[in-house]
């Protein structure tokens, strides 16, 4: 089996993976990081979104072997139960979470959004989150949360 060496949430790891595994299998089945969710499994829904070398990535489409040498950020690397990241905090305060399945992907995508647009317009937000489906809480609450988080995250810089 191929050996993949990578950094996940600032921790160096070495994993044996079957060659046909995708990155989400490496994260969930190989490392037990269950925060990243698999929705559609074909790149449409955005639930599995992670950052690979800072770039937005669908973990269900990326081959695990391709992650060799990469730096991966998953939802587990964004905040902790004790200290939520401001993006997570905003999602909670605005009721932008219902079942929570899409939330890790949305939080990661919002993180990438704020890296590129510290003061995003509503158009920027809608455009950036256009590949992340939520089927319960509703997009307006998510939009409110992201607007709010943008202020908090950017003010802190």
């Amino acid at each position, binding site marked *: 089996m191929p050996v993949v060496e990578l950094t996940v949430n600032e921790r160096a790891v070495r994993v044996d993976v079957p*060659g046909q595994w995708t990155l989400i299998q490496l994260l969930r089945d190989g490392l037990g990081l269950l925060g990243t969710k698999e929705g559609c499994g074909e790149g*449409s829904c955005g639930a599995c979104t992670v950052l690979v070398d800072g770039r937005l990535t*669908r973990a*269900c*489409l990326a081959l695990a072997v391709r992650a060799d040498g990469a730096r991966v950020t998953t939802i587990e690397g964004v905040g902790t139960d004790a200290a939520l990241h401001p993006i997570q905090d905003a999602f909670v305060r605005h009721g932008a979470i219902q079942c929570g399945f899409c939330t890790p992907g949305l939080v990661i995508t919002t993180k990438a959004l704020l890296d590129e647009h510290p003061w995003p317009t509503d158009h920027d937000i809608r455009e950036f989150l256009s590949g992340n489906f939520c089927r319960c809480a509703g997009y307006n609450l998510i939009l409110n949360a992201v607007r709010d988080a943008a202020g908090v995250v950017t003010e802190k810089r």
Partner: protein
Amino acid sequence: MILRPFEYVESQTVDDAVAALRGGGDDARVIAGGTALVPLMKHAVLRPARLVSIARVPGLADIAPATSGGLRIGGVATHWAVSHATLVRERSPLLAYACARVASPTVRSMGTLGGNLCYGESASDPAPALLALRATVRLHGPGGARTVPITEFFTGFYETALQEAEVLTSLDVPAMPAGARWRYLKWTPRAQEDKALVGLAAMLVLDGHRCRVARLAVGGVGASPVVLARAEQALEGQELDEATIARAADAAAGEVEPMDDLQGSAEYRRDMLRVWVRRVVAGLAEGRAS
């Protein structure tokens, strides 16, 4: 959804990739970003025994200026990279914009321009832009390198001029003429993340109100992305009045062979193409650009 086992080859050079593809025969496939190929493998539409990666070949993602004033874009440059590159935004804003309309930000940051074209999807966003810009495709195969005008690259429903064991290495994109007006219109009747039902790329050069150059191409309508040659002819050399623009829109609607599918009927596609050619050209003629 999981993948069936395959052999994975990480190529260091284009020649390595070509050799690995030849060795794998019909069961070998090139993989770059994987955004098109991996879903097809998950659904068992394709079952390659060997995947030959070209994603890490040095230089293959480069975006460089060409001496002609145009651009050379490496086959594995991502849509994200192309749409964000200052060089592309300056020299070929139509292409930068079309690449920024592909799927979603995450898919754009994984999927590559070369992969997009080799997939042969009719509703490709960059394809009509590259057709309107009259780009050239550079391929490398067992017989060496060759070039194909993009106007001859798309040969049918998910079919391209790519031959066995060939790799798309780069694209040559001519500079847009000074003062060119352009637009890429992606008509998705249902939702933003859908494929284009009409993906219309247009570039016009005007002398006053007379059209000196007209370049129009469309994806999503027929089996392949195509140049709207008759519509271009109807515009070039003419004053862009309402009647001329309507003639060009009718010419476009008449020269395509639209598909019928769940997104829309053939006649709906034909009608929407007529509508959008008229609106886009009229908008550009009035200076309501991009």
